[in-house]
């Protein structure tokens, strides 16, 4: 069991102290297999209990612990110290206002998730409560990947469009809308169009692709967004040039 002395710099901010955000450096003895989250917990327990951050599951499924580690959006519970041989700089997730230390204000994100109507809108009358909707493994596979989003917001931190244009609805929200559109049991694509096909929807995306790069669950939001662009375009053309099809 080997240990390593790790230098960690954390951005601190407490609105009640009157100080502007500033870096605080800690020197911590860490076990070699630790992740950044373990180091933060160790700091909080043994050096500085005033450090505030979100975390819970420690297995990359709850999405709480997103933060910037050496400039890249990462989950603290999946950032292995062995990948950072030098100084480790930890900051709150970019593109969100900072509430306190590493805690960001995510109201905008939560509101955007709700706007895409992320729930099953049945095709016809809801199935009588006797059986499940049939869905083949192939139909499930079609949208399965897009169900894996843990709402960690790393994609929003990586997306320069969201940084420059905060009204942009963003990768995770679009992906969630697309997830429901592609679910064979759902019939609500037309209802989601208003949000998804808006200027602040998919058309703000210029396919930087950073979102998919940083996604810890390999959801590939960039793919979802481009797929929505194509479908929205086809929808627009059929609606305006072949209106008889929409009956």
């Amino acid at each position, binding site marked *: 069991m080997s240990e390593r002395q790790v230098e960690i710099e954390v951005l601190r901010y407490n609105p009640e102290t009157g100080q502007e955000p500033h870096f605080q450096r800690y020197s911590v003895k860490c076990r070699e297999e630790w992740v950044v989250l373990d180091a933060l917990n160790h700091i909080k327990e043994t050096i500085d209990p005033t450090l505030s951050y979100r975390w819970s599951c*420690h297995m990359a499924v709850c999405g709480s612990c997103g933060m910037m580690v050496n400039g890249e959006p990462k989950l603290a519970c999946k950032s292995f110290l062995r990948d950072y041989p030098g100084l480790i700089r930890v900051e709150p997730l970019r593109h969100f206002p900072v509430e306190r230390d590493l805690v960001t204000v995510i109201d905008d994100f939560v509101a955007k998730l709700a706007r895409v109507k992320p729930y099953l809108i049945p095709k016809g009358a809801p199935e009588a409560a006797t*059986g499940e909707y049939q869905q083949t493994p192939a139909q499930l596979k079609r949208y399965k990947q897009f169900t894996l989003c843990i709402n960690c917001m790393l994609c929003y931190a990586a997306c320069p469009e969201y940084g420059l244009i905060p009204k942009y609805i963003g990768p995770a929200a679009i992906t969630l809308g697309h997830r429901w559109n592609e679910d064979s049991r759902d019939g609500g694509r037309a209802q989601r169009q208003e949000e998804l096909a808006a200027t602040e929807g998919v058309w703000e995306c210029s396919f930087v692709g950073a979102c998919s790069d940083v996604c810890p669950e390999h959801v590939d939001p960039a793919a979802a967004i481009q797929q929505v662009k194509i479908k929205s375009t086809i929808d627009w053309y059929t609606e305006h040039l072949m209106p008889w099809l929409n009956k």
Partner: protein
Amino acid sequence: MPHCGLSFTIGSMETVKADVAIIGAGGAGLRAAIALAQADPKLRIALISKVYPMRSHTCAAEGGAAGVIKPDDSLDHHFNDTVGGGDWLCDQDAVDYLVQEAPKELIQLEHWGCPWSREPNGSVAVRPFGGMKKQRTWFAADKSGFHILHTLFQTSLQFPTIQRFDEYYATELLLDEGRCAGLTAIEMRSGQMRRFDARAVIICGGGAGRIFPFTTNGAIKTGDGMALAYRAGVPLKDMEFVQYHPTGLPSTGTLLTEACRGEGGVLVNKHGRRFLQDYGMGPETPLGRPVLKTMELGPRDRVSQAFWQEQKKGNMISTQWGDAMLLDMRHLGEAKINERLPLVRDMSISYMGVDPVTDPVPVRPVVHYMMGGIHTDKRAATPLPGLFAAGECACVSINGANRLGSNSLTELLVFGRRAALSAAEYLQSGARAASESALAAGASAAQGRVRELMQRTGGKETVAGLRKEMMHTMEQNAGIYRTNEGLVEACAKLADLRQRYRAIELHDKTNVYNTDLLQALELGSMLDCAEAVAQSALARKESRGAHQRLDFVERDDRSFLRHSLAYFDSVSSPRIEYLDVVITKSQPGVRDYSGGHE
């Protein structure tokens, strides 16, 4: 459209007026909220959680949810598996209700879009699970809890009458004339306390696994919901029954689902022997072809206990994090592992540096679930009028002395809904609103208590220090096997820690998102829950299910076919009383997990 009203008078606490307040927004809380919104669109629902709903620990459940749908299965089978698995401590009328409602709830979830894994013909697939005679565990790859949680959260977004209060930490229940009338909660971001007036309150706050040092549970599982009810006079039932999940990662404690074994994975000791056959779960079944309810598909308590025994014999492998056994899944093949156990593979590689496709994974039992909790009846009602509870924080009891895997996710749905219906009925029966003076006084007192903690100076104790001592004594003395000496020591230690808790001084005395305060409050909840666990364990002089004593090794139905009830005392230790178990169809028998019983 009904909306929770906000009122504010200069100098007094901001108050939210609702009809029903739900504390906890995981699987049970969300299911309850949806059920209420559907039952009565005029109800104002306040859904209060100390974390955003998608962070709830439901997301970490992996294996699946049990419900009878296949033609070779029956409600009786599910009933018998559950009651036997619980070592006959389950209330059988409640189990009846569970198994009956289970398929309906799981189909409802499917109708809401849950991406259940499928058979080739398009119907829902089921997988084998521990302690179950038939395959009935619905699953969504190995992220079933995650998909259930997200399906419920997303579905809840279509009901405008569900008003969410995300990152509010509930501190106390408010009572008036022996009825539950609301609660106080701290808005984390501002540090301001708010009062919630609600004639019905449903607690869905989850379990308290964090009282132990090695657990699959996330940071938030600190028993706050249990403590809220407990301190309000509601007993905690069967707290001594703490489930160890056999296959946690030794490095982080996080969970490798039982489905690893359901799909055919096997457990071996350092000699390569599948040792479970030496503990009444044999004979050894063919590799990759598990037989339900035997060997690696035995119930969790038996498998964890077998580990402990093997460890005593020196047959476990030694890792830098302690002893472990090996979970071998190589024979499943890469394709099957990627399709059915992708999260397991990812976690093994990331956190243990081991790829289950090529190597066996070291695992060990870790604390996973609490069978015990807030005493409720089968309608999810507590003895306190107006207070209901559902999910892991509650004890109905359907899990008895040992829970079968995949019954818990089902329990969230069935009893989340049941609690909602009971709350709605209670409101309709004419529950009186509480008096303003009682609510204001209660809220003011609650605020005073938090203020005292925040402003305290000269304290010698720290949150981290006391927490560590608590976890140490629980691990040493209230683990898989218990003794009288150990439990007496644990009880004394915990009583001492509860005293020393009053001498904690916070390092952070500011208001905005103060996690030092949050962790101190959570520690308070944990100490109360831990003491209930230790005292209940000390009083139960028998071995049953997950509660095993080296000094009382047999099950004693004459004296202990009863639930323990721990009643809170603010100064001294809880007093323990007993309540008979409801037995209907299944008389206590022998739990036989050997393969020879068909």
